[in-house]
């Protein structure tokens, strides 16, 4: 069977939504099957680490890698698949920018444990926490060690292409599949290494059908305070912090079209160094006030700036983590 190029898809620390998104390309999945020899895809088939280890380096043509680097095992597989793959694609928000779970970088792992194992419903008088290695009467049980910080794939290995989105839109996945197949047939060229694929060059507003005017606002509102929004008018102009202006296009502005603000899952636009910085300056730019006191009171309308600006992107931002994550003296 295998003169066909080899294809792999892998999840590290992810929610599985990327896999669902791939399954949702429906009949296109058959094209993948027709053009590739799927050698490694845990969700769809038996996947054995050592089988992959035994493959020749570079023998997998295309690997779609989703999920972030939450523990050492994630990193080990990342290194393995990098070695084995010609083209390694950082697939989806977790691999590319850390995604929502990247917000864990605001806190030290110890704090995550302290909370998770002492919630309202947790009965834990002896203050038991999971440990990497534990002696049961019958022997030793081990579980992987968590990294102190969630990392993106590119922070651990060299990545060829990035495909943003939480999850990437199925039509974009289909487009990329088509592209690769065309490349195989010599009908198309691969984009330059390091490119973002399966997304636009601009930002969500580019695809958003809502009318936009010169923006000057006197107050930010939380969506539940003003819903339902005017369906025809820019959400940000209605005072609801919409991340669309700074978020890469490619999703067809799904959330704004459904009456909800963009929350930024497609990450920064082309060439942007820090996603949060773009939003900070964008939101600040539309505030219609000059007096510090008035500006501050308008800013109170954004109750959680850090979360608002780094919801998906913290692990890939310039600062990458909250101070307390790495600095015991930090607060």
């Amino acid at each position: 069977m295998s003169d066909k190029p080899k294809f792999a898809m892998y999840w590290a620390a992810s929610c599985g939504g990327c896999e669902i998104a791939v399954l949702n390309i429906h009949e296109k999945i058959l094209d993948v099957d027709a053009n590739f020899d799927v050698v490694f895809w845990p969700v769809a088939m038996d996947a054995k680490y050592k089988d992959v280890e035994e493959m020749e380096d570079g023998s997998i043509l295309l690997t779609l890698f989703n999920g972030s680097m939450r523990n050492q095992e994630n990193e080990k597989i990342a290194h393995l698949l990098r070695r084995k793959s010609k083209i390694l694609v950082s697939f989806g928000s977790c691999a590319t920018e850390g995604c929502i779970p990247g917000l864990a970088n605001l806190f030290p792992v110890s704090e995550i444990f302290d909370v998770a194992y002492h919630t309202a419903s947790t009965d834990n008088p002896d203050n038991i926490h999971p440990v990497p290695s534990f002696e049961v009467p019958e022997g030793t049980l081990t579980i992987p060690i968590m990294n102190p910080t969630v990392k993106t794939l590119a922070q651990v290995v060299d990545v060829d292409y990035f495909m943003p989105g939480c999850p990437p839109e199925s039509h974009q996945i289909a487009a990329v599949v088509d592209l690769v197949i065309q490349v195989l047939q010599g009908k198309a060229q691969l984009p330059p290494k390091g490119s973002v694929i399966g997304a636009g060059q601009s930002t969500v507003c580019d695809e958003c059908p809502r009318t936009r005017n010169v923006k000057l606002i006197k107050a930010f509102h939380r969506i539940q305070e003003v819903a339902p929004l005017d369906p025809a008018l820019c959400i940000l102009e209605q005072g609801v912090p919409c991340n669309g202006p700074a978020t890469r296009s490619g999703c067809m502005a799904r959330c704004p079209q459904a009456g909800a603000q963009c929350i930024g899952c497609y990450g920064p636009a082309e060439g942007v160094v820090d996603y949060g910085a773009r939003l900070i300056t964008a939101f600040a730019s539309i505030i219609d006030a000059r007096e510090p006191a008035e500006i501050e009171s308008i800013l109170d309308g954004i109750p959680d700036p850090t979360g608002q600006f780094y919801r998906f992107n913290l692990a890939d931002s310039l600062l990458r983590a909250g101070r307390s994550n790495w600095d015991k003296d930090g607060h």
Partner: protein
Amino acid sequence: MTQLNRITIDPITRLEGHGKIDIFLDGNGDVANSYFQIPELRGFERFCVGRPVEEMPLLTNRICGVCPEAHHMAAAKAADAVYNVDPPRTAKLLRELLYMGFYATDHTTHFYALGGPDFIMGPDSPVAERNILGVIHKVGLEIGGKVIQMRKYGHTVVEMIGGRKVHPATSIPGGITKILSEEERKQIEEMGRWAIDFALFSLQAFKDIVLANKTYLDLILGDIYTHHTYYMGMVDANNKVNFYDGKVRVVDPDGKEFVKYAPKDYLEHIAEHVEPWTYLKFPYLKKVGWKGFIDGRDSGVYMATPLSRLNASDGMATPKAQEAYEEFYSTLGGKPVHQRLATHWARLIELLYAAEHWVELATDPEITSSNVHRVPTQTPTEGVGIVEAPRGTLTHHYTTDERGLLTKVNLIVGTTNNYAPIQMSTNKAARNLIKGGKATEGLLNMVEMAFRVYDPCFGCATHSLPGQMPLELTIHNQDGEITEVLKQFVD
């Protein structure tokens, strides 16, 4: 003490660790004990603190890409409760309609791709055939198309109401942001009617192929897959199964109502136990107490699956599903049904209910009303939201400051409810099937079937999909040499 042999069953790969089973053998090679480990924690309960409560339906989505709809709903309901706001009827209808579309898709996927093959093909049929393709060959080609169609339809509903296929975006405190157009409604109604036929067809297939087959029936009724535990499920005012709203009802191993509580009271009834060898916690009934991984009335262990929902209810709220419900119990000899394998059948009955209710909602005169949101007016404080995820009762509990920023978050997710039962089932299967250090034929699939019935989604608890979890089982002799490797391939 004597050096034990160990068997490691690793659902996916040895090094990836999306949950693995360690089975320890004693000197005679019989099972001394086994452990089902969940090796991942992402800390949502910590990093959601400080976020605005209205973001929870969007943030907790990302706990699981398989059942984001469930988290979206539980979060939205918890957020409603935090603001003590009651969404307009239309908003609730829309949320529930989205949820039905999701349920139909999810149950279909599980039955045809994951659980069903065991029966339709037979547990001891060649592994290579025991999958969706095998099913297609046996039941007929058109079934494959139907399954894909059903998934597509379900996703279409989710996208029409939730804005996106994966990780819906439209539920907010006080309602929903999207209004349903008449064209969309029509389309949804048609798809719903199709879904009903599909569900009936699936039930018929199950009867023809499984129930008609003595071997399968015995298998279902056999002891290996039987546990006598409490059962949990959400019910409406008439104690009928409800996925979106109602009270949580728990019945004891004899099927008598043990408790029925409103979401806000969950803490009086549910507690979680921590073990140092796994990242996942073990919920149990607080009033009974944690007694370890054991059956029976004195053990707080309970189960929350399609089967438990049926056991915990007095019936289904839609006519066809109600018929199926009655047939279910008459066939299996009354309530409650303790045989775990019956869960597959229960799942199809829920599929039928989801499809029927889907049409009921889509034909409700108010479904296209533009009154889809009520602006919260009260100071946010604390709230609990509970829905039935396909894999069990899902509880979100938030506490906020006066600005609605979270100060406490507690999540008890679907699969977690069944963590103890899964541990018990696999343990029991292992004990029954592994003797003298030798694994009997079909052991692998038998053990796998033991936990597949729970349709475990560690996306919630960890991050793996409810896949046909391929097993690899290695048996060592006293000297630790590999004497036998049993494998199951799926491709």
